């Protein structure tokens, strides 16, 4: 057993970080909130970089890589609040498996795909032109009318989608849909991991720098222990994300539990990290100009995507009882 990123993954993370930290930023997220400017890097740039389509087969012009590789990139995307999310790319790559034309469209950017779940607004509906959905057990595809939601986190491009005429792509697509959803949860959790890890860095840096009563606030147990609790959660989330991403490629039987656990942990950890780091920053942490609230917005929205934390914990419990009995 070796449960650690390989050099290949570390190199990939480095490359993704370089690209994403130049192409996206919390400042860009703030601008999107203030002025409705598009998200950064934006769909076209993300596709062009090749990072978004890592899991699309090489034959279709994608990277032919693993979910683990995509998760490594997604963590970096989460750090800088990049948009659109890699989740739709990950889900679409699974759902369109075998559909060479559409996969090629995904890979060359000519198709802007978003996956429509049954409940709640659709992630990155804004800017998408092609929607995938499950209807009566079949995977369908078509255009749709998008109504934008109030942009709590503008980088998530939430909208309600009314599907127009759809084409059936795969009948009896229940299993495929489930796998895609689980891969999507894994990538969502990886983005949450990146955001939470970045928040922790911000909190730790501020706690070292800011002084009160003659010493750095990070020397006080109240502040120190709050940050430690976030650290512990972030590291456990990292373990669960890696496990789920690895399972997607190598242990499909473990994916349901791993993906649900990662999704649940990401929801609670990111929210906890955001609230803690705002608290650590005192007054400055809840000003518009500080980056903390942009991550906080991400936390408040992501919690409800692809099923909320309550649903994920319920699923973990059901799977655990099933496995144990």
């Amino acid at each position, binding site marked *: 057993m070796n449960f650690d990123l390989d050099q290949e993954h570390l190199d990939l993370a480095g490359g993704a970080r370089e690209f994403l930290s130049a192409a996206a930023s919390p400042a860009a997220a703030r601008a999107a909130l203030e002025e409705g400017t598009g998200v950064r890097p934006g769909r076209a740039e993300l596709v062009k970089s090749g990072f978004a389509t890592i899991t699309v087969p090489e034959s279709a012009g994608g990277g032919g890589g693993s979910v683990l590789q995509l998760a490594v990139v997604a963590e970096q995307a989460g750090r800088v609040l990049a948009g659109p999310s890699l989740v739709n790319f990950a889900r679409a790559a699974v759902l369109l498996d075998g559909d060479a034309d559409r996969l090629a469209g995904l890979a060359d950017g000519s198709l802007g795909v978003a996956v429509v779940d049954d409940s709640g607004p659709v992630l990155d509906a804004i800017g998408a032109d092609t929607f995938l959905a499950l209807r009566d057990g079949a995977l369908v595809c078509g255009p749709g009318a998008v109504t934008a939601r109030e942009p709590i986190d503008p980088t998530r491009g939430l909208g309600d989608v009314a599907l127009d005429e759809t084409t059936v792509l795969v009948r009896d697509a229940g299993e495929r849909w489930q796998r895609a959803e689980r891969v999507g949860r894994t990538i969502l959790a990886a983005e949450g991991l990146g955001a939470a890890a970045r928040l922790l860095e911000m909190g730790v840096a501020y706690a070292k720098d800011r002084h009160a009563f003659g010493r750095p606030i990070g020397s006080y147990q109240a502040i*120190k222990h709050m940050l*430690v609790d976030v650290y512990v959660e972030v590291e456990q989330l990292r373990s669960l994300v890696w496990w789920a991403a*690895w399972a997607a490629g190598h242990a499909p039987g473990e994916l349901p539990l791993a993906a649900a*656990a990662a999704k649940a942990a990401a929801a609670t950890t990111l929210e906890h990290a955001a609230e803690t780091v705002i608290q650590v920053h005192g007054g400055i942490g809840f000003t518009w100009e500080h980056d903390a609230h942009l991550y906080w917005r991400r936390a408040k929205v992501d919690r409800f995507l692809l099923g909320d934390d309550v649903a994920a914990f319920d699923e973990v*419990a059901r799977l655990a009882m099933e496995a144990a009995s």
Partner: protein
Amino acid sequence: MDFDDTPDEAVWRAEVRAFLEQHSGERPSDRDAARAWQAALYEAGFVGVAWPVEAGGLGGTLMQQAIVDQEMARLGLPALINLIGIGMCGPTVIVHGSDGQKERYLQRLLRADDLWCQLFSEPEAGSDLAGLRTRAVRDDDGGWRVTGQKVWTTLAHIADFGILLTRTDPDVPKHRGLTMFVVDMKAPGVTVRPLKQMNGEAHFNEVFFDDVAVPDAERLGEVGDGWRVALTTLMSERLSLGGGGTSIGPKPEAVARHVAERIGALSADRQVLARQQLGRGYVASLGARYTGYRQLSKLSRGELPGPEASAGKLSGTRSARDLTDLAVRVLGDDARVDGDTWQTMQAVLPGMAIAGGSDQVLRNIIGERVLGLPAEPRADKGVTFKESLA
């Protein structure tokens, strides 16, 4: 990244499993049987797997040791009787002991010929271990005389030897006046008194030293160097906790099994709440378990066990509490989980939260040594131990 065994690991696992399955019928029923079981395992090459050959070990890898531990857990076999000796005392002797000490003690320890305990904590020195008061004073023959009291000593009532941290110089700052010894637990002047816990059992002891003679040859490390020697012990403890605190409290799978059996008898409302609670505890347990695997991977590449290991302990106690609470709510008080009543399980948790470092101490360690946050100003810095008592 690869969760599967390497070919070598798979061969080793098969060997271990074959041996254990062949012998797992013979669960040790008493202390002598437990010693015999450890001895048999040792002869088969499954104890001290990662210890150096010259220390009586197998010179194997930490991953091999972890595989033995996993297979024993899989069969529900109890921990080895000399676990503290293997995990903490032996490694300290390996690093700091004289050739004579290594010769005398190490193989016998692995074979459970001698049982060992660790004598660090004192009534007035818990989190602040370096504030301990047990005195060792030179006698006329160049040996030492030890007087004082230790507490929370697991196995002291049956141990043959212990590693004993003492104060040999009260006139220097507290960390600098300590010296470590190997002490014969059967020596005159050693009194062991069991310490009953809140659950009514006595896993721990108080140990009283009344002018106990300890030869200088039983010193571990230099005079005044005891703190550094103790750090070796504590680091070995972390290493032996490789699983990252997942050994704390009830196993999540066991709780899931019992909830699965009983949940049908609950009202629909209670089923919803039970699933939420199980889900939360289970995710926390999985998070700690897989984080433990990451640490094990690092260790098996030769990295030293860092303060990160404390994180597993920290979260382990919390998920243990949540899962136990669930068991209590769901299972009813006639239920057993892994053979324990819920009462016993609950009553043992507060102790677990403190043994091996309180939550507060662990958070300080992680905050300062992992996150790099500044330490608190120390009131006792640069003060001699004697002055600190004033």
